């Protein structure tokens, strides 16, 4: 071993030169990106986004018109509102601290990590721009959303439109900044995940308890203090302004400064992992692949399936390896050969799927339970308060379904494995739904229990409709998942036109809307699952609800049948069209 050692200290390049080089690199790349940009495509996207956004705002505006204004007293709103609205800021803090513990929220290119962050240049100066961009994007997006919401609120509550838009816009920006800055600070302070969970839970519990107490007029004095109140009160500046609320802005600015200052201490390990996943996530989002987006977000959170399934105490005993003779196992050859009367066994799929679901990590099970609770709240409020809460129910049904379909997702994402099994794919796919359906039974029962807690008048109806609802609601995710399965490639469409010619001749408006429809279709299918709740709200008789339940069961059966028979039906349909073309020719 050499005893040679460094006689001279390491020389670090001049930082001003390095920063100038970095700026040069970024400017060159930005110029190139702008040069490669398809401005027509961007303009079309802006046009489409604007059109859909405007339609959505008009629809929501029409829906809320008069729905909340009559019963709201401004003084009451100023008393009870801040602690409830403040829940949003505290939720942003909770999500931020959890995201930070998981390595979020900033991501940069892997090449930047390898070539720039490993170079002798101040990491703070390198990370300043990505962190600032993330803060700016979050503040802008939520600020814009807040301003639009403020405009809508101004039609129902006293105060000028400008004041409401500004106040809600500022509040939205604070929520965005709180999330990103908290995540960056938690990440750089190396907050462990368990501590992040505790901090998030404590903050939410504190704010929630105060909001609950104020809502029920049970809280007075210092007990009314909660972390999100000042920001919540700021959102109500459309009614009246209170100087002390500016402290919320000061805190947000201080957090922004801290995040920018600490940005250079973000861990490379987490940045590298996020860098790889976020590029895939952006691509999936670009092609409106909702399922992949959800899957990649799980990976971003480092959410791994458990090695040992829940409830399994011991490692299963296995036979000893067979003795190898001349490269062949001596004892297993005969026993592993397939017998002639072999047929597929549903129990094999069931065993595989039950283990898959029992491997779901605690965080995911908690998320499924949370979605069930949100669905329950949404259903109860849809019946008793406003049909707008149906959106909450729909979101919960869709995402609970998506979270529960792990076995089917695993199968579809590995088509080579499925194709290696001498069984019809549809049979395998359909049988994968059994375990998920059983998990969804628990989701439905939990949702029903929460719905009854929120509105005891619902009573037995909740438990009667819950399970068919969650099954039907999961059909959207089932369709989007099964559509990801590969199909036999064909150069022509059903009508016989070449696929390339078809895609190139489609006008952009149609292509854009067909893309949007492809994204929305699974959500629309899941929306069928909410029908009994709306029937209960508007028809309010048990017979109608019963009929809607029968319709749901029929609908679910049809979708499951489609999963089972998709391939043969597709072949039959194609043959039918080809025979038709041949006959007409």
């Amino acid at each position, binding site marked *: *071993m*050499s*005893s*040679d*050692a*460094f*006689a*001279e*200290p*390491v*020389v*670090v*390049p*001049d*930082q001003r*030169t*390095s920063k100038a*080089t*970095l700026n*040069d*690199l970024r400017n*060159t*790349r930005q110029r*190139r*990106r702008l040069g*490669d940009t398809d401005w027509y495509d961007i303009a079309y996207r802006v046009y489409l986004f604007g059109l859909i956004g405007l339609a959505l705002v008009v629809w929501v505006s029409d829906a809320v018109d008069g729905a909340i204004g009559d019963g709201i007293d401004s003084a009451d709103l100023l008393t009870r509102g801040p602690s409830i609205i403040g829940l949003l800021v505290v939720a942003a803090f909770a999500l931020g601290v959890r995201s930070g513990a998981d390595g979020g929220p900033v991501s940069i*290119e*892997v*090449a930047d*990590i*390898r*070539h*720039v962050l*490993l*170079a*002798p*240049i*101040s990491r703070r100066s390198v990370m300043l721009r990505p962190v600032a961009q993330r803060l700016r994007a979050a503040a802008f997006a939520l600020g814009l959303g807040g301003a639009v919401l403020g405009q809508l609120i101004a039609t129902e509550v006293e105060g000028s439109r400008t004041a409401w838009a500004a106040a809600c816009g500022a509040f939205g920006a604070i929520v965005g900044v709180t999330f990103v800055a908290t995540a960056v600070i938690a990440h750089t302070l190396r907050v462990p995940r368990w501590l992040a969970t505790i901090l998030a839970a404590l903050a939410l519990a504190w704010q929630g308890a105060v909001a609950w107490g104020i809502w029920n007029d049970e809280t007075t004095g210092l007990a009314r203090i909660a972390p999100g109140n000042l920001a919540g009160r700021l959102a109500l500046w459309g009614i009246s302004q209170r100087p002390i609320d500016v402290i919320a802005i000061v805190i947000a600015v201080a957090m922004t400064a801290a995040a920018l200052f600490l940005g250079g201490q973000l*861990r*490379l*390990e987490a940045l*590298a992992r996020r860098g790889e996943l976020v590029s895939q996530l952006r691509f999936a989002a670009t092609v409106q692949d909702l399922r992949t987006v959800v899957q990649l977000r799980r990976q971003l959170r480092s959410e791994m399936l458990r090695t040992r399934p829940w409830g399994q105490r011991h490692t299963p005993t296995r036979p000893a390896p067979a003795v190898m003779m001349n490269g062949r196992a001596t004892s297993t050859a005969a026993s592993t050969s397939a017998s002639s009367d072999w047929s597929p066994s549903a129990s094999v799929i069931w065993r595989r799927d039950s283990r898959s679901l029992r491997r779901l990590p605690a965080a995911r099970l908690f998320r499924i339970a949370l979605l069930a609770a949100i669905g329950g709240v949404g259903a109860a409020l849809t019946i008793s308060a406003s049909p707008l809460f149906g959106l909450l129910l729909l979101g919960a049904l869709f995402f609970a379904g998506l979270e529960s379909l792990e076995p089917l997702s695993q199968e579809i994402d590995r088509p080579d494995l499925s194709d290696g099994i001498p069984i019809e794919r549809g049979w395998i796919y359909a049988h994968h739904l059994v375990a998920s359906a059983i998990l969804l039974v628990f989701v439905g029962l939990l949702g029903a229990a929460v719905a009854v807690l929120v509105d005891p008048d619902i009573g037995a109806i909740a438990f009667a409709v819950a399970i068919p609802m969650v099954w039907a609601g999961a059909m959207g995710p089932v369709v989007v998942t099964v559509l990801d399965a590969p199909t036999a490639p064909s150069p022509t469409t059903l009508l016989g036109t070449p696929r390339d010619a078809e895609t190139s001749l489609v006008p952009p408006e149609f292509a854009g809307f067909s893309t949007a429809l492809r994204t929305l279709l699974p959500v629309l299918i899941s929306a069928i699952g909410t029908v009994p709740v709306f029937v209960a709200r508007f028809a309010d008789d048990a017979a109608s609800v019963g009929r809607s339940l029968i319709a749901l069961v029929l609908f679910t059966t049809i979708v499951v049948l489609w999963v089972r028979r998709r391939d043969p039906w597709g072949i039959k349909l194609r043959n039918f069209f080809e025979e038709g073309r041949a006959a007409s020719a």
Partner: protein
Amino acid sequence: MSNSRSNRPQSERTRARTSAGSPSSAGKKSGAAAASPAAKSGPTARAKASAGPPPAIETVELAKRYGDAPALWPLDLRIGAGERISLIGHNGSGKTTLMRMLVGMLEPSEGTATIAGHPIGSIEARAAVSYLADQPVFYDDLTVWEHLEYIARLHGTDDWEQQAVDLVDMVGLMDRVDDLPTTFSRGLKQKAALTMAFVRPFDVMLIDEPFVGLDRLGKEALLELLTLAHGDGATLVVATHELSSVKESSRLIALSSGEVTYDGDPADADLAALTEGVRQDRD
């Protein structure tokens, strides 16, 4: 190769430290060497100078775990300046984990490590160490030449062009220098990454599986570059499965399941056994 040799990618620091008679020691003075006098007179440098010169790489109880699974058990290692180390071991033995920790891409679960006396990941350590990873990574929108320019300049090298030309010529990429490396095959990517690792000044080079995907020309070029760098006093650590290249090294370290199973003269080692994880005591 004489042209490449006279313009070979070595830091001024390395040249100054090594034999005065070396042809490369008369080479051009890089911008990096002239810069940052503050670094030379900083408190860290003074403290280290009073305690004696540090080794190129030193780890103290350095360990890495992924959850409950240990990837590298606590490791004490001291690698002197100018050593040429071969790091071998089976898949999953901890070679890449060790390298990534030394370069600052992975955080140790326990322990500490220094490069040239500076904590891993510090700006001085980053200035001292060049890392050629097993998976080359490039910008989608920069050519090979643009990569070389920016990497050299980020490391404070102004007179990089001739050096880059020699490197590119040496690995046979001259015709592709204005192409995007992300469109390259695995072997060409590896060659492009090679040029980028050598175009910047360095005292310590960590190389992970450098021969993967390389053709004969590429392997020869890499071995020559390594020999030249070592001749100029750079410390080299090469993680490899190519046992034939081990004989070039002055010291062999074998890892198995995150533990050192051999540390000594390559000539005394049973390489086949070591790559299968068999522990071998040093003579």
